[in-house]
């Protein structure tokens, strides 16, 4: 009885299984549209906003949300909505930069470790491990603290503590791939290692890299905001979401909108990047399975 029921469900599930490749394409198209719409909204916001992000207006301080100031104004009378828009460029853009540089450095290290012999592997991976030994945020705080608080130093610090995950992933995947039949074939057929890396290894770890990269991106938005909130990151008067939180902290009781809106912005951005990353992982994962 149960056996029959199982078999029936399995067949139904198989029949409903859609083509993961098509799913992935559909998802990427939707993702692309969402990004375009977001960019258009941002651009319209920049164009329509009558306020400058860093220009104080002492006549209109700490105003709650009104029709003039949709999200209110801060202690210097600056429009919170405008500052949020500009702050988004800082938070999301800097995080993008940090993660991308980290991904490139990490991938290079991982590939080198996986492919240039045992000595390179041991050396590079021990270096990676020792970087792992520092707790990310504390290391960044230390570096930013030593070099002095500035945006550049924060970016350097976050790159310095952010590349190892990529190195480790790429190294383990490429070592695994090196034993796969098609890579062995490529080696036996006398392909130079540059081509093996570019054509056989990298394309096959690309999907996992993209997933890790989106993950790291959202995490580094949090790190940037965290460091800025602690005063080590983007410096006033520049609007960055974490820095805005820091500014609003003193007025938490009287003007809670100063903290609510930047907080919401961080929450929503990180959440949507994470969800996108998860969906991407699911789709790419099933795609990988079908390809094997």
């Amino acid at each position: 009885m149960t056996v029959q029921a199982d078999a029936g469900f399995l067949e139904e599930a198989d029949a409903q299984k859609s083509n993961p490749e098509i799913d992935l394409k559909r998802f990427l198209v939707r993702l692309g549209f969402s990004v375009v719409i977001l960019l258009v909204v941002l651009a319209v916001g920049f164009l329509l906003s009558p306020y400058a992000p860093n220009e104080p207006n002492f006549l209109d301080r700490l105003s709650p949300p009104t029709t003039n100031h949709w999200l209110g104004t801060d202690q210097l009378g600056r429009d919170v909505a405008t500052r949020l828009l500009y702050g988004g460029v800082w938070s999301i853009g800097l995080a993008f930069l940090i993660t991308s540089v980290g991904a490139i450095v990490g991938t290079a290290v991982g590939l080198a470790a996986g492919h240039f012999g045992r000595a390179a592997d041991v050396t590079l991976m021990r270096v990676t491990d020792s970087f792992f030994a520092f707790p990310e945020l504390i290391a960044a705080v230390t570096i930013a603290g030593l070099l002095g608080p500035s945006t550049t130093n924060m970016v350097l610090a976050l790159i310095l503590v952010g590349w190892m995950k990529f190195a480790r992933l790429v190294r383990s995947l490429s070592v695994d791939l090196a034993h796969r039949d098609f890579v062995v074939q490529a080696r036996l057929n006398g392909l130079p290692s540059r081509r093996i890396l570019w054509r056989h290894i990298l394309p096959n770890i690309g999907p996992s890299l993209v997933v890790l990269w989106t993950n790291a991106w959202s995490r580094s938005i949090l790190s940037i905001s965290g460091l800025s909130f602690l005063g080590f990151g983007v410096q006033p008067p520049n609007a960055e979401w974490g820095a805005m939180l820091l500014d609003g902290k003193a007025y938490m009781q009287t003007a809670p909108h100063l903290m609510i809106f930047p907080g919401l912005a961080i929450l929503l951005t990180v959440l949507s990047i994470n969800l996108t990353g998860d969906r991407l992982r699911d789709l790419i994962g099933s795609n990988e399975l079908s390809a094997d």
Partner: protein
Amino acid sequence: MLCIEKLQLRLHGKSILEDVSFVLPRGHTLCIVGESGSGKSSLLRAVNGLLPATFGSLSFHPKNGRPVSLKGRWKGVAGLSGSRWVMQDPISALNPKLPLGVSVGESVFAQKLSPLELKSAVSAALADVELSPEMAKRRPAQVSMGQAQRACLARALIARPDLIFFDEPLSALDAIVQKQIAATMKRIQTRFDTTFVIVTHDLGFAAAYADHMLVLRGGRVEANQSAETFFKTPESDYCRELIAAAHELGSLSETVAQVSGTKAATPC
């Protein structure tokens, strides 16, 4: 042409192959038979330089390509020049991200052909294994097992090798496709005068195909005979047992042995 003498292979202190020797003339087929773990695949890997041989010598004289002669401990020879290897599982032997045409073309990467020459060479190789030229654009996930194995065969053929190693080339395929691919292999061999070294589980296939038999058991040579004498008067009790078992399963019969290039439909 290919001559292996007293090949010994030890891994982590464990003996994998002991004292394996054989000589294979050009254009002939050697079938290597043995149970799992008998060292068949290790032998292929050692000959291709994927595993380091601890002792022994190898000499290989291809028609075109430099002769290879190795003695003592050898390792790191990535493939013998003038040879190609067709693996057991065609899907994992092909890069899932690359169209078949690219995978086939990479086999002659060292020749530095122009894109146009490469394209026509790939089409010709695909035609040799009875694949349509459109297959060059497909990725492994989009083709059947049989088509993928044909692509692997094309990847070997395009290099015009004197020697092709097959590691259980048919065991991942179903019976009808097995039969077709076996026929294609036969045709290719007669046409290009290629030497085949085929690792197989299947005595029926070996009977139809082999000129020489090499039976391995526990890393040692159990029999090294011409196929004809092997199936008539096997060298050892183990071989007699093997042949009897194959007879009982029905995979080996006189008719099969005579209809060359085909094999009976038996589960592997």
